[in-house]
């Protein structure tokens, strides 16, 4: 059974990482005076996304539903989040590499092209969807039914075996 304190702590960490992510997405363009600052911010952001994915995976592994083997039930609910997290991580790393590569020598120059602009829009939109799905998933993982035996789970188990 998931303890409330543990869940609160994990939730706090997840939301803090999300907040940092949102902060960097919003204001990284303003903090480009030195390319090293942006580099550090981007590295921490990508690690934060990775950490968030790892944490949500660990939380999924911790559920009773997963431990009895009903991975499909969990995947059905969190597939969108897992796919979008992977997509967002890939987009973020790619965009960070691209922007840093363009601005490394001269951080205060105009680097935008149509391709970069499009990529930027997709990355930022994916970020918003990622925030929404991630926040929803973390709240949903507080469902006590996922951590204990229940008629619902037994029914799902019987259906999975058929």
């Amino acid at each position, binding site marked *: 059974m*998931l303890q*409330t304190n543990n*869940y*609160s702590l994990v*939730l706090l960490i997840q*939301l803090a990482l999300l907040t940092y992510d*949102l*902060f960097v*997405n*919003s*204001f990284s*363009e*303003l903090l480009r005076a030195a390319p090293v600052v942006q580099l550090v911010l981007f590295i921490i952001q990508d690690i934060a996304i990775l950490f968030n994915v790892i944490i949500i995976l660990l939380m999924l592994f911790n559920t009773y539903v997963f431990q009895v083997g009903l991975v499909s039930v969990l995947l059905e609910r969190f597939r*969108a989040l897992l796919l979008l997290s992977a997509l967002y991580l890939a987009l973020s790393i790619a965009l960070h590499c691209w922007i840093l590569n363009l601005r490394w020598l001269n951080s*205060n*120059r*105009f680097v*935008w092209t149509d391709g970069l*602009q499009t990529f*930027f*829009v997709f990355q*930022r*939109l994916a*970020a*918003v969807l990622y*925030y*929404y*799905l991630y*926040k*929803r998933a*973390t*709240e*949903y*993982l*507080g*469902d*006590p*039914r996922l*951590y204990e035996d229940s*008629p*619902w789970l037994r*029914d*799902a188990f019987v*259906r999975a075996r058929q």
Partner: protein
Amino acid sequence: MDLETSKSTRARPSRRGPRALPPMPSQDTGDEMPLAKTKKKKYKKEADGVEEPGMEMGGVGSRRQSESREPLTPEPQDIPPQKKKKKKKLQTPELGAYQEEDPAGQPELVNGDGGEQHTDGEEVTRKTKKKKKSKTPEMHYANELSVEDDDIVTDVQPPIPQHSLFSAPLGHSQPVGKVFVERNKRFQAADRLDLGKPSDQVDDFMEVKPLWSTRDVAMRVHSGFRVIGLFSHGFLAGYAVWNIIVVYVLAGDQLSNLPNLLQQYHSLAYPAQSLLYLLLSISTVSAFDRVNLAKASMALRGFLTLDPAALASFLYFAALILSLSQQMTSDRIHLYPSANETLWPPGSEHQILQPWIVVNLVVALFVGLAWVFISTRPEMDYTEEFLMAMEVEEYPRLDDKAEIPA
């Protein structure tokens, strides 16, 4: 004599019986082991002697007990232990006389198995009864104390091998009123009937004890974020309107003074864009939360029924896309002071800035409209209802889902 020999032959298996079970006494502590063994054997013999005609051994055993434990008693000292051993081996008819004292010596045990005694030869029983009458007053005192000892040692162990060896276990698991439950590191007796009640109490206690369950924490976080979102909706609407007003004021009448706008606004453009993205992100997530976008059926139903939250989330998402698409222009405005001719060719201000201003206007309109929609029903939150209903509604809902493909 025939009777006696038959007794002796029957008595032998009973003597072997206990020997066939050496591991049983090993459960006791080392100090008590030998004593328990001998007593157990004695008891065995007694029991067999009572059950079957081979009572001699039991009689000797009981006498030995009384001798060894109560040297003060007058009677048992007549016979030295060596003699008894010899008699034990030989099993002479004389032993019958000693054995006859046994029922008197162990009145409780004999009474316990009295029914079986009657099945044997009647002569023997009569003899014992006669002797009983004569010797009971003396033996009563002699064995009063020993009975207690016997109870302590032999009560628990001997019946188990007896039954397991010679007969099928008959009703061993009789329901006992008392049950021993471990509480505070001690086993305490508790009534079986009461056992159900404490478990219920424990369940109630377990349900009450955690002030906040994980679901409550999730609900609190969700409602907390909804408050932030509500603030963000209003702030974003006000900020967007203020932004577009400032832009139009600086641009002058019919966008006639665009260089002035660039001069005044270039330092504000990029921070404004960043702040707009921040507020739009929070507002969009909050609007998605309200319409529960992840549940496609619910979201679609919301859009089709022109639900305010669904419309608001659509408007926010559109505003977000439009706002992000102006990132390049914002950066261009931001770099206006240090710009060369390639970035800001002379006379290109109107061409570059007009779409940017129009998009900003549309964003401000969308954001304002979305805020109006949200503010008509600020308490509506389908995700919260979904989280609240996790325990009740999800079960049948999933059932329906599963039945449709089947």
